[in-house]
């Protein structure tokens, strides 16, 4: 069950591949198997028909041999000379000469019946005499023959020609024979007076069928006890095969054309014919495996199958890989969509569907980016507007306090100072409210700062001094209006709570690409949490010039110029605070058009 789950959750390519593999292999195997089976069956059918005919033909050949044998036997058994030779006793030489001569004559005629075959005719008589047309052919003595089972079997059935298997040790090793034997019986008395043996070498006998055999197509002659009497497969001759005999008998009993069985350890198609006069079976074995192998080259089929399967699988793999590869890539890209601000575009390639999908996805990304961008812009603008609005607002408390200070001055009679203060206020207000331009030059900003500092010094005394160190090449540079003021304000009201007097330094210089403004004091200093921004002091709200605190300044700079610019504060307790503001370098000329 586990692997089913595994399969279900596996990649598309694996699924496709497994399914295709299984189907291709199955189709290949099934087709080949069915074809092979069909071919084999067809082959068995045709073989059994042709070989049946062949067997009949062999039968005919063997029958004519049997006819010759029967003729020879008949001739010999009817010959008086033969009978005389086999039954008579020894008389004088002359008489015997006649008997022997006639015998030879008769035997020659007997053998002439078998002239077409290479055989030897041997006769033994009750008187112990024997005669052989070729005693070297079948090397057996008459004494041996008398006790031989061949003779016993023949004597038991005196009316029949018996065919039996025989082995003899000849000059050239073991020789095998088929012996046709018959008792010579006295017609009147019914007494046996001799035995006639016609010996044919197995090699000779084999010629009846050897022409019809080929490797994998064997013929053997089986006697009723299962002994292989003759065969083109010489190693089987003389051996006993009861199994085969059983098969052959089944074949005969059921009157089958052929039988599929096992013979001598091999699967074979078995055909068999009776050889009635011989009382032998003519058996034809067709080695299934061998002959089928001749017709169907299994190895070749397997090889072709393998090649086809291999090629198909390769093709399937390549195609499905291409198909799923773009999908996989798509999936992989989609999963990383959040990583690069929705800018992971997909390259449009692959099949039509994948292309369309990629296009749609890219389009969606475009739209998404567009909206996000617009949203950001809107938010930025909104913030900017908010800050600008705050900037433009002059804190009424500041005005009130300043005006109150001026009143005091006037009452004290310090007309000069009062006038100066009013001038400073006017200038400050003018620059703060009226100048719609967002950026002003350093010069103007310094003017503002001086006015503001002056007002403050009027109000709170000059125990806090302000020093300006401005690099002359920066004078014409621009910066957002009132960007430095909040820091000075902050320093004024918070840096000198413990120390009662000190100095605030304002340093402005430029680097290659940026304008660096520093507001440093030698006041109380503070402990800074590196993660937290310096908090505004809400209670000092009344002292603020505009609504912008130092908090907002940083936001504003970043909004306007980006993350690389901004404010950095370093502070050491009891030593002072240093604020560094980094701004882009903007020359005045760039904004001349906007002035007024």
């Amino acid at each position, binding site marked *: 069950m586990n692997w089913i789950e595994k399969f279900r959750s596996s990649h598309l390519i694996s699924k496709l591949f497994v399914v295709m593999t299984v189907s291709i292999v199955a189709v290949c195997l099934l087709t080949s198997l069915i074809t092979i089976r069909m071919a084999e069956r067809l082959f068995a059918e045709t073989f059994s028909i042709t070989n049946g005919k062949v067997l009949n033909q062999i039968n005919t050949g063997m029958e004519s041999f049997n006819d010759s044998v029967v003729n020879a036997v008949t001739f010999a058994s009817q010959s008086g000379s033969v009978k005389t030779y086999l039954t008579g006793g020894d008389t004088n030489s002359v008489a015997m000469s006649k008997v022997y001569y006639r015998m030879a004559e008769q035997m020659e005629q007997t053998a002439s019946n078998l002239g077409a075959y290479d055989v030897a005719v041997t006769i033994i008589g009750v008187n112990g005499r024997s*005669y052989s047309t070729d005693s070297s052919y079948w090397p057996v003595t008459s004494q041996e023959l008398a006790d031989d089972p061949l003779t016993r079997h023949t004597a038991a059935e005196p009316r029949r020609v018996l065919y039996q298997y025989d082995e003899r040790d000849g000059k050239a090793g073991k020789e095998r024979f088929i012996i046709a034997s018959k008792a010579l019986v006295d017609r009147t008395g019914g007494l046996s007076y001799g035995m006639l043996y016609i010996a044919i070498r197995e090699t000779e006998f084999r010629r009846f069928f050897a022409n019809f055999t080929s490797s994998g197509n064997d013929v053997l002659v089986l006697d009723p006890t299962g002994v292989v009497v003759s065969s083109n497969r010489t190693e089987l001759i003389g051996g006993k095969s009861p199994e085969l005999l059983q098969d052959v008998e089944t074949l005969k009993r059921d009157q089958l054309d052929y039988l599929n069985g096992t013979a001598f350890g091999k699967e074979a198609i078995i055909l068999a014919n009776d050889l009635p006069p011989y009382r032998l079976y003519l058996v034809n074995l067709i080695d299934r495996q061998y002959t089928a192998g001749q017709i169907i080259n299994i190895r070749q089929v397997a090889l072709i199958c393998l090649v086809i399967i291999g090629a198909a699988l390769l093709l399937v793999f390549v195609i499905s890989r291409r198909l799923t590869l773009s999908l996989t890539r798509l999936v992989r890209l989609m999963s990383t969509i959040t990583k690069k601000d929705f800018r992971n575009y997909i390259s449009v390639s692959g099949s039509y569907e994948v292309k369309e999908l990629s296009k749609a996805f890219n389009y969606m990304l475009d739209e998404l980016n567009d909206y996000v961008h617009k949203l950001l812009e809107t938010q930025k603008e909104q913030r900017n507007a908010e800050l600008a609005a705050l900037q433009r607002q002059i804190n009424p408390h500041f005005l009130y306090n300043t005006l109150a200070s001026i009143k005091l001055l006037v009452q004290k009679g310090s007309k000069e100072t009062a006038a100066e203060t009013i001038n400073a206020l006017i200038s400050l207000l003018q620059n703060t409210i009226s100048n719609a331009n967002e950026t002003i030059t350093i010069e103007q900003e310094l003017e503002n700062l001086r006015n503001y500092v002056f007002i403050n010094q009027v109000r709170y005394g000059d125990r806090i001094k302000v020093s300006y160190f401005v690099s002359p090449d920066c004078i014409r540079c621009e910066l957002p209006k009132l960007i430095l003021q909040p820091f000075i304000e902050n320093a004024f009201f918070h840096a000198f709570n413990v120390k009662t007097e000190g100095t605030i330094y304002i340093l402005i210089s430029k680097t290659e690409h940026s304008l660096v403004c520093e507001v440093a004091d030698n006041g109380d200093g503070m402990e800074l949490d590196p993660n937290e921004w310096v908090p505004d002091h809400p209670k000092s709200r009344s002292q603020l010039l505009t609504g912008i605190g130092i908090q907002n300044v940083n936001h504003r700079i970043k909004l306007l110029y980006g993350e690389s610019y901004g404010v950095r504060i370093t502070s050491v307790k009891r030593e002072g605070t240093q604020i560094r503001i980094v701004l882009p370098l903007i020359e005045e000329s760039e904004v001349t058009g906007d002035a007024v």
Partner: protein
Amino acid sequence: MRKSLMLLMLSLVLTLVVSACSGGSGTAGNSGNSGSTGDTTGSTAGNGGDGSKGAQEITVWAWDPNFNIAALNLAKERFEAKHTDIKVNIVEYAQDDIVQKLNTGLNSGTTKGLPNIVLIEDYRAQNFLQAYPDSFRDMSDLIKPEDFAEYKIGPTSYNGKQYGVPFDSGATALYVRTDYLEQAGYTVDDVTNIDWNKYIEIGRKVKEVTGKDMLTQDPNDIGLIRVMAQSAGTWYLKEDGKTPNLADNPVIKEALETYKAMFDANIVKLNSDWSQFLAAFNNGDVASVPTGNWITPSVKAEATQSGKWAVVPTPKLAYSASSVNASNLGGSSWYVMNMDGQDAAANFLAETFGSDSELYSLLLEKIGAIGSLKAASSGAAYDKADEFFGGQKIYADFAKWTEEVPKVNYGLHTYAIDDILAIEIQNYLNGKDVDSVIRDAQAQAESQLQ
């Protein structure tokens, strides 16, 4: 690297050229022959010339594995040791098959399927030599007829050309059972150099005393008649080898009379085939065996009879003045077919059966074969006393008798006349008059052999 490659190419080209040359010279050297040399030699037919590399094969046909084939194997061994480039291929056939195959092959006018060397029985040799003289190689350049037993030259030569290389001696002898003779009151001397009448007389006595027959005969095989005829230097046929020579031939007449006398004396045990023939003397049923020396191994096969045998000269005809105590039965000789590879084949014969007396000693030792090469009869093997025959130096005797065998011309029709005579002899035994027997035989032969 390049150099070796060049060398390789060069040697390859050279090999091709050389083999082409040798192939060409091979066929050129054997011009005048049609076709290849048959199943076994066909494949090497192109290598006929001397000096061409690759084993040349010569095929030999013979019968009887115990005698001729065994002799061939010995010869082959000795020859191949000296000539590694020649392979001798021995093929065994039955004699009848060889005769038939030769006839078929020669009749068809092609040497295809025929061997380089063939063994032919002397009785049949003229039949082939006269009918197909061009098909056999004249061996006169390689062997000298006078080196061989004189009687072997007649059958193996034709028109003054020596075609055959004489092989085994068919010199006959009378093998006698000394114990039976003794019982009948005879010694070996009493049967030495006798005539057939004396032989019959002794036979009667032996039968009377021991009950054993004197000899055994197959009525279908009248070899004894031939032995008698050749001992008197005459034959079934006249000198021309064609005309039957029966009716007016006193030797034949006497031979027939002698033959009948043996049967009338009732001293003949009948046999019907070779095994019964052997059984007759191996079983001790007969007191003597008059036949060719090739029976020696068969006689000795019955070891229990050791010391009971002696070999004496063949009896002669009593009334034919020309008859001597030596004759011949059977025997054969080697012939080279006139076709591709004949020179190698001729060489083989000349160096082995044609001259190698050591080989003949070996043949004698191993298979008991006695050759007809005169020079070979002096070997140590020939001087050996044989205990089976009571210490008699039988091989020296055979060698001596071989040289004494009268020379006859077996002619073309020995076996045809043999068949006619065998039938007539039966009539004769059954009472026909001898003159009409030979007259009738003559008439039959004349009509049959026209």
